[in-house]
């Protein structure tokens, strides 16, 4: 089930909210847990077993660490190994076998396993819990319903944000559910839905059409395709995060922000402080800093950056283009740290450099293979099969140019500033709610008539 589906919008969500609001507070977590399991089982009836196991195992590990403080470390290691084994097996086993087969000419047959949706997200949440319990940052959760609610909470279950246990644990026992927070949450949800349905889907359709031309495109067409994907992935993922944050708020939870207008960044470092903040924060807290962060020798710092970005790439998927994408960012961050930071360049120039590098990054990320990514990047920089501009490029410029301009506008902070100003007055709020209702109607019309509705981050 996806948030931008009619089943979710007109069946699952209303039923869940009604049940959630009519039961007394002490049963709200249980209602949320049961509905979240139904939400997950809707698309993953078999893999819900794996999730239930993950809940039981991590709950037990947390309790054991609390009670057996002398053996905390070995229990933590046990928990980490089991979590990583599950993630590794279901996500990377096929990739590993394929590479072993091609490297050594073997013929190992591995059963193709469907990737359990959201496994990377909920495993990282579980890991943050057991590590924080080990560090003494949080107490272990004694109530298994509360813990299961943390792991399964449907708003952020399958595409994040990755909520750290310490950020949300108090809300399992006490949270404020008001009409005001419900309204603000609903507003956020609808804006997220509109980002996904009205922008990401349309940009995605354009990108798919351009991608279908393969390598036989012009420089202009290659750029158009890359820009479409750059905007699509932002509106798709940030739209989903907005919906998750909005749904959480409607139920009294404060889910962390995940995006902060990443495409205005003037450095790659800044970009990663603004893009998928919950993931970069997770890696910083649980991998980068434990390795020594940047308070080590330059050589060790390079090692730390390489490890973190190799893992970040692999987290996104079991394919070589994700590995290269991760290492590409490692190289850029190291270049920034040790070379380009020494030069003082004008802001507009660093902005252009950054956005071009980010767009190239998305080409690597979205390509079917490294070869295809190389061809697209070459096309973007003048080595195109169809010259500088072709009919396809002109067609998409004329028909999709406006959509790209709208996309660029809505990816800028000015949108947030306008919203904030409007929220300050009664008339502004009324306008926002009417605007949201109109957007919701437009989304429903699109969903009833349109076919293209994928979520890019579901496969991670």
């Amino acid at each position: 089930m996806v948030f931008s589906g009619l089943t979710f919008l007109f069946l699952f969500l209303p039923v869940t909210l009604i049940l959630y609001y009519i039961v007394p507070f002490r049963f709200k977590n249980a209602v949320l847990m049961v509905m979240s399991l139904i939400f997950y089982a809707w698309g993953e009836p078999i893999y819900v077993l794996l999730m239930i196991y993950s809940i039981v195992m991590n709950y037990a590990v947390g309790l054991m660490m609390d009670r057996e403080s002398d053996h905390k470390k070995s229990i933590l290691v046990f928990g980490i190994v089991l979590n990583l084994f599950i993630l590794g097996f279901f996500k990377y086993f096929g990739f590993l076998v394929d590479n072993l087969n091609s490297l050594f000419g073997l013929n190992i047959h591995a059963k193709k396993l469907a990737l359990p949706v959201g496994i990377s997200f909920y495993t990282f949440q579980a890991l943050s819990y057991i590590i924080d319990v080990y560090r003494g940052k949080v107490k272990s959760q004694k109530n298994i319903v509360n813990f299961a609610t943390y792991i399964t909470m449907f708003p952020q279950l399958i595409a994040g944000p990755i909520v750290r246990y310490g950020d949300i644990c108090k809300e399992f026992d006490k949270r404020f559910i008001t009409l005001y927070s419900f309204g603000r949450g609903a507003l956020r949800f609808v804006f997220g839905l509109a980002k996904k349905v009205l922008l990401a889907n349309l940009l995605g359709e354009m990108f798919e059409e351009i991608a279908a031309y393969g390598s036989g495109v012009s420089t202009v067409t290659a750029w158009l395709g890359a820009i479409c994907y750059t905007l699509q992935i932002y509106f798709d993922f940030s739209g989903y995060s907005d919906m998750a944050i909005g749904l959480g708020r409607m139920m009294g939870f404060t889910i962390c922000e995940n995006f902060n207008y990443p495409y205005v960044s003037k450095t790659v470092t800044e970009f990663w402080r603004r893009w998928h903040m919950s993931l970069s924060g997770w890696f910083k807290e649980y991998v980068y800093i434990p390795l020594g962060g940047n308070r080590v020798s330059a050589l060790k710092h390079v090692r730390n950056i390489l490890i973190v970005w190799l893992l970040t790439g692999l987290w996104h998927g079991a394919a070589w283009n994700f590995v290269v994408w991760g290492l590409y960012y490692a190289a850029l961050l190291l270049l920034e740290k040790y070379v380009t930071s020494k030069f003082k360049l004008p802001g507009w120039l660093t902005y252009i450099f950054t956005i071009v590098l980010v767009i190239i990054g998305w080409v690597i990320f979205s390509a079917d293979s490294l070869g295809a990514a190389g061809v697209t990047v070459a096309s973007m920089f003048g080595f195109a099969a169809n010259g500088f501009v072709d009919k396809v490029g002109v067609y998409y410029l004329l028909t999709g140019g406006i959509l790209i301009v709208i996309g660029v506008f809505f990816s800028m902070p000015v949108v947030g500033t306008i919203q904030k100003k409007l929220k300050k007055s009664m008339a502004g709020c009324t306008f926002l709610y009417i605007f949201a209702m109109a957007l919701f109607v437009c989304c429903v019309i699109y969903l009833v008539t349109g076919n293209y509705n994928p979520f890019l981050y579901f496969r991670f």
Partner: protein
Amino acid sequence: MKKIVAIEALLVALLVGVMFLLLSGANVRENVTAEEVEAASAQFVASETFSAKVGTELNAKRYMGLNVADYSAYVYYVATQGMDVHEFLWVDAGSEEGAEEVLAVMNERLTSQMEAFDEGYGPEQMALLEKACVFSMGRYAIYIVSEDSEAWKSAITDVLEE
């Protein structure tokens, strides 16, 4: 310490059990024949609501864009009239990778059919196409457009599973 080891052993055993359940379920048979698929499909083909005939290699090439002669076995039923969308194709592609390729072709067929009957041009056909089941299981790829798509899929799945 013994208590911890016992709980950890229990958790490992539980994981083994869960993985066994997940991995042992729904293994796909390697030697399914066209006759078995035809037998499982008989009641759906005979249904009054399914207006299709046995499709030839040429039909499959023309409508589905697939050279079925390249595959070891196939079963194909194609609509009797041009404005009809009833269709069934089962292909033994020989490998999971092959089945994925055939599946991509089948998805293209479904998309092009939907585009042909979209925007109110063929509401009945669109309703049928929206019920379509297009999927792969192991080395087999299946395309079903019928009033009984779900039931037909279930019957075929029963044949393909061990």
